[in-house]
């Protein structure tokens, strides 16, 4: 494995993007990952405040009509290579808001989602498993 690939997968800085309508439960579960119980800094994963520093965008919540443009612009501003992770039932499909008038677009119609982590909300273990699978995919393992 080259140093480049190793560096990209061993130091994933994540940016947390709540796409409009969300009950905040997924957001709270994401913050759980940083607590001493799960401690994802072991794997070099850090939460950053600026999209320019991010290597992964965690999208939560159902995408509202107003948020579509903002989400697009956030993704365009990210320094590439950058992966997109959809977390929770709302961001993966549209969850219970599939027929909502204010949430016409699923997240993956706007952003190139690399991995889906379903659940309402997904457990922190599920998110870690998702990240492990994503790293395996990036490193070219089957």
């Amino acid at each position: 494995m080259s140093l480049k690939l190793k560096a990209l997968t061993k130091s994933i800085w994540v940016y947390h993007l709540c796409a409009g309508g969300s009950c905040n439960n997924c957001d709270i579960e994401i913050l759980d990952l940083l607590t001493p119980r799960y401690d994802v800094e072991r794997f070099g994963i850090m939460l950053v405040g600026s999209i320019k520093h991010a290597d992964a965008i965690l999208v939560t919540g159902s995408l509202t009509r107003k948020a579509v443009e903002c989400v697009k612009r956030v993704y365009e501003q990210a320094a590439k290579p950058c992966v997109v992770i959809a977390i929770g039932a709302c961001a993966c499909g549209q969850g219970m808001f599939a027929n909502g008038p204010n949430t016409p677009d699923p997240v993956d119609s706007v952003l190139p989602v690399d991995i889906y982590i379903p659940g309402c909300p997904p457990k922190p273990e599920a998110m870690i498993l998702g990240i492990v699978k994503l790293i395996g995919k990036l490193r070219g393992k089957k």
Partner: protein
Amino acid sequence: MEEVSPVKIMLKHLFNFIIFPGFLFTAVVGLAASWIDRKVTARVQWRVGPPWYQPFIDLVKLSIKEITVPKGASKPVFFMAPFIGLSAVILSSTFLWLANLELGASGFTGDLIVILYLLTIPSIMLILGASASGNPLAAVGASREIKLLLAYELPFVFALVVPIIKSNGLLKLQDLIAFQAANGAFASNISGFLAMIVAIFCMQAKLGLVPFDMAEAETEIMAGVYIEYSGILLAILKLTKIMAMVALPLFLSTVFWGGFSIWKYVVLLVIIILMRNTNPRVRIDQALRFFWKKMTFVAIIAVLLAMIGM
């Protein structure tokens, strides 16, 4: 006396600047210190913490990422600022290492003052780069950094006056080390001790660590001064900060504590890490009040005590 060709002298200086003890050596020591900082922070918070190569691999990753430039940015300043800041830190750490390691012929009269100015340049470059990016949050961060700079420079200069008074006006780092070797470290006197405490607080603010990290405050202004930087420019800014974590404790142990040794560096690093982990972030007005009222007062007392020979 033996003639040494100018080419050889230049090569030696380049070697000193780039490899040992300048850029590479300081960067390696700084990466190790940065890992210790993160690991100890993690242990304090009852976590496991990152592996030993984490700071290095962060820098590698940042350097292969795309550089994004904001639309309204002033490009020359935005690109130049991190490089100038890094070279200032490299230069000051080269001076400090040479003064400590190569006893005999290095340095010049007044290099203490030169280093005082060189250590200010990274902050100024950070202010310039952040202002050039055109981001409102970066502007908030830059304004906080300016206020912090104004706050800590005054007590820092006062604290540095104490060793100069005590050594009857020596302005050369090696002379200061030699003087302390003959007469005992300045920090063993009451005035030198007070000045060193002031300098330690100023060091924390210069490094931009908690409790004085309001310029980058990632929970309120999203990394503030760093917000628009990405890719290798961000890596250089991080490296500047990491190297300052070597240069500043080195400076303090040279000026107040009789020269560098590994245990002195470890003690200063432990003080930095403990202060960082046991304090909340203060507001900028609280920091200003702290430095201008309390620290300047203590520093002036230290200067007066030094003048009457205590």
